[in-house]
């Protein structure tokens, strides 16, 4: 590649980050929204271009300032990062396209440019994590995206968001600092921060204690950021009280990017070198994943608040992703990566439908949306179809990843049957909690004083396109499947 194309990995971060600074200055109404949407779409286009390159088996490597790696800073885009970049930039673009009215409703007019600035910084940070090839840059981008996302979550008018975001800040910072300690210890032992170089050099010192300690710190720190059960306590309230559009964006991608780092670090750096690390990783993560799936789905079944219900469901879905990863096999990791993609589609569509509801309904309690389907048929239709994808009904995206997860579980070992049972039971639990919403919306008497009207057209269009994407990727899963498979092979190919 030549010309501007070779700079794409850097532009992926630079475009949203520089636009963030510009957007802050755009005071006139709507201009900040237009500019940030344009920047986000631009980032999406860059991600698509790089995905096409990685589909041909290419790995894009970019040397900042042309300093050779491992001394200079390297950016690297392979199938795994391309898949995640598609999810992140796609979620941001579709949410921004849809979100003008919803954000205008939640955020005061004069603070909107700042809100969009924070949004673009989250986007830049997340993209930065995904293109970075060295451990310390990942930390810096992680903190950029986290700090900006605290601002987004606290941006709404609901005061309960403030204690929620304070908890998120404390736990997020502890997670990031744990990660930093781990990286420091590895640097102490190997003298390198570049992940590829680290994998190579860690081999000589792999049996020493600091490396083991580092592996522990990094795994726990990132699990905290990724809201792996039982480190998820910051998540439900932060998602519930955030402005609706922020919930869509963060639920679709923020925790998954932390899972990305976790998998990349564990499978790239530790597993090929540390003796028995794959067992430790599996025995650490698998019970937690199963608990996450069962406990969080159970809580969601009895949760009266619609947004918190979906947030608990997210904790359960993170459990599916880590369950796939904890099988430490190519099919398992493929299923995990597919589920990252498909869950972003399903949960994004569900939260978009919630944002549609939020245009007319102030309180997101299930008993206050009784009979709303008569007033908002399109919104609730989208909710039902996206719910089917979350449950994993055949023909939807959610089915594809659960299918792969179940077939990976069958292939794993004697425990396979138990894993399959857990997946099936939790899918039934998902039927229950989605049904509770459907029952309230369709079969309860409508509130006569309710002035609910159908959501504005852009929001509905975006919601429905997200829903249709669920069906598209349910029927034609070739693109995410190919990326997930080659990413899983790459992660596993490093193993001896």
């Amino acid at each position, binding site marked *: 590649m030549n010309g501007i194309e070779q700079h794409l990995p850097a532009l992926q971060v630079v475009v949203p980050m520089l636009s963030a600074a510009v957007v802050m200055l755009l005071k006139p109404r709507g201009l900040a929204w237009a500019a940030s949407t344009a920047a986000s779409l631009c980032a999406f286009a860059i991600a698509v271009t790089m995905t096409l390159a990685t589909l041909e088996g290419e790995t894009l490597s970019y040397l900042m300032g042309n300093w050779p790696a491992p001394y200079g800073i390297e950016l690297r885009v392979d199938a795994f990062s391309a898949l995640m970049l598609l999810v992140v930039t796609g979620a941001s673009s579709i949410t921004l396209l849809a979100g003008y009215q919803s954000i205008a409703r939640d955020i005061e007019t004069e603070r909107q440019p700042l809100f969009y600035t924070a949004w673009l910084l989250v986007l830049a940070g997340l993209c930065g994590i995904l293109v970075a090839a060295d451990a310390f840059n990942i930390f*810096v981008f992680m903190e950029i995206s986290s700090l900006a996302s605290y601002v987004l979550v606290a941006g709404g008018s609901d005061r309960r968001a403030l204690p929620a975001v*304070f908890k998120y800040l404390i736990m997020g910072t502890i997670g990031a600092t744990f990660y930093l300690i781990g990286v420091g210890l590895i640097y*102490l032992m190997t003298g390198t921060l570049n992940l590829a170089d680290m994998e190579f050099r860690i081999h000589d010192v792999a049996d020493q204690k600091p490396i083991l300690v580092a592996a522990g710190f990094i795994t726990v720190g990132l699990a905290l950021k990724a809201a792996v059960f039982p480190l998820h306590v910051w998540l439900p309230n932060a998602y519930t009280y955030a402005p609706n559009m922020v919930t869509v964006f963060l639920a679709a991608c923020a925790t998954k990017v932390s899972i990305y780092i976790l998998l990349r670090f564990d499978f790239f750096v530790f597993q090929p070198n540390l003796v028995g690390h794959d067992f430790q990783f599996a025995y650490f993560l698998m019970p937690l994943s199963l608990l996450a799936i069962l406990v969080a789905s159970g809580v969601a079944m009895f949760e009266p608040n619609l947004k918190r219900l979906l947030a608990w469901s997210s904790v359960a879905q993170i459990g599916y992703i880590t369950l796939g990863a904890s099988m430490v096999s190519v099919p398992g990791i493929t299923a995990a990566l597919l589920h990252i993609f498909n869950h972003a589609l399903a949960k994004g569509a569900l939260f978009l439908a919630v944002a549609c509801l939020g245009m007319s309904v102030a309180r997101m309690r299930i008993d206050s949306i009784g009979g709303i389907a008569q007033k908002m048929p399109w919104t609730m239709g989208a909710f039902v179809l996206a719910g089917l994808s979350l449950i994993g009904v055949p023909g939807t995206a959610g089915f594809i990843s659960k299918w792969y997860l179940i077939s990976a579980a069958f292939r794993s070992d004697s425990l396979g049957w138990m894993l399959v049972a857990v997946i099936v039971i939790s899918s039934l639990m998902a039927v229950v909690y989605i049904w509770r919403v459907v029952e309230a919306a369709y079969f309860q008497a409508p509130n006569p004083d309710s002035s609910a009207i159908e959501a504005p057209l852009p929001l509905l269009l975006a919601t429905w396109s997200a829903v249709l994407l669920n069906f598209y990727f349910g029927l034609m899963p070739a693109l995410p499947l190919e990326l997930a498979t080659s990413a899983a092979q790459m992660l596993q190919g490093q193993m001896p």
Partner: protein
Amino acid sequence: MELFGLYHYWVFAVLLMIGFYAVVAKLNLIKKLLGLSLFQAAVFLLYITMGKVEGGTAPIFQAGVVDQLYSNPLPQVLILTAIVVGISTTALGLGIVIRIKEEYGTIEEQKIQEIDQL
């Protein structure tokens, strides 16, 4: 004696745990943030310590100086960035505490929970 020779690392571990204890155990939000800052400062110390090479001097190249042992400059550069991150986190945290005080009239975690449950 060797144990004492590593006292920088002991200071790191002790500071880290003091900070962590404050974050977990204190209910006052400001005290929590103080703990968080201490927690982060301990990690800065870890990085700075590892950059020191025994007998090494400041890593500045000069004409005529050869065979000089230098300290590793990279951890210090890294930690400059981490300090900036730490300051931003503390500043944002304090900003949120001010907003909580405005909205709830208290910065005690339990009282905030009681108010929310009403």
